[in-house]
């Protein structure tokens, strides 16, 4: 009896900060109600705006746009056409409106992630100390299960699309930071030296040499961010974000395979289209496609 602690982890060492953290978040949410609700209203405003914008585009125009973009980035008509067919299928599944809702969450959270991730990436690239701190933080953010982001988002912003945007933003901003700083740091040494040798100031060097030279890598970051957001937006149905994810969640709860399949395939289609379009534009920029 006395030597139980050898075999079992002793009760005395158990310490659970979980509830303390919960209290902390609640406290935070109470203290910053004003700023939180300001963030929320801005997000909602953006979401509504984007959704209205997407809704204004007739379905056939959106399909034509995708066909054209596919041709522009892939250099072949049939590639664009394939994307158009994929989009058309989503419509035939009866999921057009839900797709637009999902798309608007993605657009908002990705634009926020880019607006936040790019400057952070620049700072990380420029400052060794910031990099030392950010590296483990970003590792942590990328490894932690994505579900975990849902809870604080829901605690701070209740349910709906705003916490979905926030959770998606936090989850998808990491590759943008990482690849921006990676791209800037790995610009050819002599090209950077040339920039300095001709008398560039630090800002001139950054914006006329380093960022343009790093653009292919930064665009890969954009692509990665979109893909991460695609993954997260489905999970966000758990905190009440409407869209394709919600459809899958409902079907899962009712164990209706057929009903879950259609939105699932739609998500795959959107992911393929977004991925290929962004990657195609990267290849075009870096000049490897010629």
């Amino acid at each position, binding site marked *: 009896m006395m030597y139980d602690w050898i075999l079992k982890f002793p009760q005395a060492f158990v310490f659970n900060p979980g509830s303390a953290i919960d209290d902390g978040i609640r406290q935070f949410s109470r203290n910053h109600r004003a700023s939180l609700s300001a963030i929320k209203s801005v997000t909602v405003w953006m979401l509504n705006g984007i959704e209205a914008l997407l809704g204004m585009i007739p379905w056939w125009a959106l399909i034509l746009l995708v066909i054209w973009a596919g041709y522009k980035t892939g250099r072949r008509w049939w590639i664009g056409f394939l994307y158009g067919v994929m989009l058309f299928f989503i419509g035939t599944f009866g999921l057009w409106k839900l797709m637009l809702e999902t798309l608007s969450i993605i657009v908002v959270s990705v634009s926020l992630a880019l607006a936040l991730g790019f400057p952070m990436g620049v700072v990380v690239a420029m400052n060794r100390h910031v990099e030392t701190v950010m590296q483990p933080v970003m590792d942590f953010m990328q490894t932690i299960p994505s579900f975990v982001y849902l809870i604080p988002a829901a605690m701070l912003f209740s349910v709906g699309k705003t916490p979905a945007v926030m959770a998606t933003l936090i989850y998808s901003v990491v590759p943008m930071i990482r690849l921006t700083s990676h791209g800037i740091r790995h610009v*050819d040494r*002599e*090209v950077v*030296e*040339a*920039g*300095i*040798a*001709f*008398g*560039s*100031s630090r800002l*001139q060097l950054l914006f*006329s*040499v380093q960022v*343009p*030279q790093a*653009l292919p890598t930064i665009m890969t970051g954009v692509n990665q961010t979109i893909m991460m957001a695609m993954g997260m937006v489905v999970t966000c149905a758990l905190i009440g974000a409407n869209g394709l994810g919600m459809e899958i969640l409902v079907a899962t709860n009712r164990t209706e395979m057929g009903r879950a399949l259609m939105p699932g395939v739609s998500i795959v289609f959107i992911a393929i289209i977004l991925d290929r379009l962004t990657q195609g534009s990267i290849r075009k920029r870096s*000049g490897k496609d010629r």
Partner: protein
Amino acid sequence: MSRENSDVLLSVRHLRKFFGINRTAARKMLQEGAGKNDILKKTGVTVAVNDVSFDVERGKIFALIGLSGSGKSTVVRCVNMLQRPSSGEILFEGRDVVRMDKRELYELRRSKISMVFQSFGLMNHRNVLGNVAYGLDVRGVGRGERERRAMEMIELVGLEGWENKSIDDLSGGMKQRVGIARALCNDPELLLMDEPFSALDPLARRDMQFELLSIQKKLGKTIVFITHDIDEAFKMGDTVGIMRDGRVEQLGTPTELALSPANDYVREFLNSIDKTKVLSVRHIMITPSCLIREQADPLTAIREMRVNDVSTAYVIGRGMEFIGIVTLTAALQARLDKLSSVSSIITRDVPQVGHDVLIGDIIGAASDTPFPLAVLDDRGRLEGIVSRAAILSSLS
């Protein structure tokens, strides 16, 4: 001394550069006379440049040569402060570059010193014109003016018609032309060239060397030229410095180095070079021992040759002008024929050269004739002769 100072554009004084953290310890070990390797082992500090001093005169090309890791690239990067020297002075037009503040340094790089890189350092997000105009862009020169001047430089390096092409479409030689045009576009006083032609194939390299020399002649720019190719250094440099392990082993004109290498390392380095491309006739010519006048009689000629123990005599006119040679055989025949002077038996088609001609250029002429070559000054006076033996010994 004062005359020298007025010509000197760049003067590097006791330049040192350490890489690593524990630099104070390294400096101390260096003062105690420790070697580079010992310092690296004990302190982890690399002594890249160790007490380098040299002067570069305005309008001249200074070539710095050494194997990789000898510190030559670090030296040139210290001149425009791409790397901050650990100690020493870099006087440009008499002002110490090391002590300049940020603004002065920008100004220096924008208008006084520019640089050409080994792997070109071109920006592939700009086209040829955009790259050449980069320096002016940084200076804030307006678009019209910028492009007009960039076009001038593009024409100077022979790339007209390519100004709107992408950098990725150019060959190595053309890329470096862009690099040179970009460097010249700011109209700098000093051009730093860090192994500019090392990445080019031999043919393109020869073209570019020639082109750079003619551009330099046209614009009179001062150039610090880094290379690991001794032939290139000797071809380009008015003065050459040979570096090893962060030190300059010897400084001098190509001829000085070729004639009197300071130590075995330099000698070893020079062994790989073709001396006939550095040394000129002046360095191997000797004074002819047997001179006779055109009016001399055959007996005098024979006597002169006997005394000097040679079989040919050099015939000169009243003003020391070279006329030809008389062989011993011809002189003996002339005596038998009872001729009164040697003037009718002079061999007049002796090959003649000036004293500045490179040895490499006379090998052909020397092998076609049985006589030594006559070295004449620009007024046709005999300065000396070059025997085939002398040419052969200069080849070894």
